[in-house]
């Protein structure tokens, strides 16, 4: 279990400072996943293979030498096929992953707008789950108390907030998750295909909230397969293909290019 992902920053310039207009700066970042050649599930198997010298690892490069900049206040779309490295890029920005090579700098508070429903507990009430989920997103108890009303209001769950979560429909749970995640006031918002939650009306409400974030000057990085949405919400877009930047330009240009490919 020797860490193969220790950052290697030899090629980056240490002295250069981040311009105040930059929200995220990615310099020559490579992310390498090192996985066992065949998936090893058990400890027994691992030890046996290790003793026989049969532990073969393969490297998968999720991002290769990627450089890009996200300016403050812009809405950047990321497009690309499955496995192009879009989610890896968001994980880097969310600090869930560290680059194997290269350097990433992020200015301000980042809120990932992802499905965090996994953090809910079915036996606890909606109210109790808001505190648990808010804490998972890094909010203090005082901050959550302050936001409680607006979260419940937005999720439209006023009447059943004291019922256990197991009595909620999946739509209600998704609404609660979205309401908690977007009630933070981030400098940078990361969105990964979230808008497929709830009914038509709630989706429109979510899109409205994202537009309000944009108009308030929040930097947004949006990963989507929905070209219509990228065109509508984003100013600029980046096209990722097999871990490399294939194109970069206005959202219209990139969507046109990508749709033709």
């Amino acid at each position, binding site marked *: *279990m020797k860490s193969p992902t220790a*950052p290697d920053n030899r090629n980056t310039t240490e002295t250069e400072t981040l311009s105040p207009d930059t929200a995220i700066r990615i310099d020559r970042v490579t992310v390498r996943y090192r996985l066992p050649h065949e998936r090893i599930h058990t*400890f027994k198997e691992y030890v046996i293979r290790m003793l026989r010298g049969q532990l073969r690892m393969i490297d998968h490069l999720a991002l290769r030498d990627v450089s890009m900049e996200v300016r403050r206040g812009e809405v950047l779309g990321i497009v690309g096929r499955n496995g192009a490295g879009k989610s890896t890029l968001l994980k880097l920005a969310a600090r*869930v992953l560290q680059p194997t090579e290269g350097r990433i700098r992020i*200015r*301000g508070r980042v809120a*990932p707008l992802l499905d965090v429903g996994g953090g809910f507990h079915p036996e606890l009430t909606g109210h109790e789950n808001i505190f648990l989920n808010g804490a*998972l997103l890094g909010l203090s108890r005082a901050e959550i108390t302050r936001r409680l009303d607006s979260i419940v209001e937005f999720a439209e769950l006023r009447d059943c907030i004291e019922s256990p979560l197991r009595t909620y429909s999946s739509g209600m749970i998704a609404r609660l998750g979205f309401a908690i995640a977007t009630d933070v006031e981030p400098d940078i918002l990361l969105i990964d295909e979230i808008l497929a939650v709830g009914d038509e009306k709630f989706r429109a409400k979510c899109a409205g909230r994202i537009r309000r974030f944009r108009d308030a000057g929040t930097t947004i990085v949006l990963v989507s397969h929905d070209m219509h949405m990228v065109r509508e919400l984003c100013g600029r877009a980046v096209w990722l293909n097999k871990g490399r930047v294939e194109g970069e330009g206005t959202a219209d240009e990139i969507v046109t290019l990508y749709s033709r490919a």
Partner: protein
Amino acid sequence: MCEHSPLAGKTGCPETAQTVFDSAHRQPPAIEELVQLWRYRDLVAQLVIRNIKARYKRSVLGVVWTMLNPLLMMAVLSLVLHGLFGLRVPNYSAYLLAGLLLWQFFAQATLASTSEIVWGASLVKRIYVPRTAFAVAAVGNGLVNLALSLVPLALIMAVLGIPVGRAALTIPVSVLLTAMFTLGVALFVSSVAVYFADFMEIYQVALTAWMYLTPVIYPIDIVPERYRWLFKLNPMCHLVDIFRAPIHMNALPAMESLCAAAGASVLVLLLGWLFFTRNSDEIAYRA
């Protein structure tokens, strides 16, 4: 990361619009994790609250179970070991219960911590959370349960007429040392368990063996003299010993045991923390 923030105060370290995270200038993982754990201390509290609420919402007897469970186990073991095998220890019930409570705290907290971290791994792949928060919460949860089960212990002591003296003031110290040791072991076990699904089964078997090799249900005097040094290499042997001394005999813990317990606890926690934080970035790679 805190040094960039002029507002670091009561709410921890709020990231202002000017806070810059730079992957080229990170603190050592062990230090960074400590800083982040402090920032996320409300999460630790929420996880403990969640577990306690979830546990007691389902069961009608609720808190009573936590207290009754060790009492029932003590009754059965007393009957078998004291009654049938003829183990002669004065105030055996108190001796046994004290040992069992501490052992259960250790065993359950290390198991719970591992399942918490495996549960959290799916979240940790998507959002940033200091991973040690799950382990610390599991140990915290165990401490709450241990505190609750001190009630039936006090009851037994009253029935047996064991006096409670100043020696009892050392109990919090023994519990703290055990908690540190438990967290250290939990961090080791969880690091491995995240990778291998079967590791927990191996660990469960190891735990059972470990318990029978620790003087929990029997006194160390029944171990032949020439093997006794082997038993004393086991930190749990000393931790149980110092926890039990004031409860069983109203006596202060032996200095030798106290030093061994303190040294082992600090060392294991330190090593566990270093090992876990060194490897924890890898959890996010396990897609």
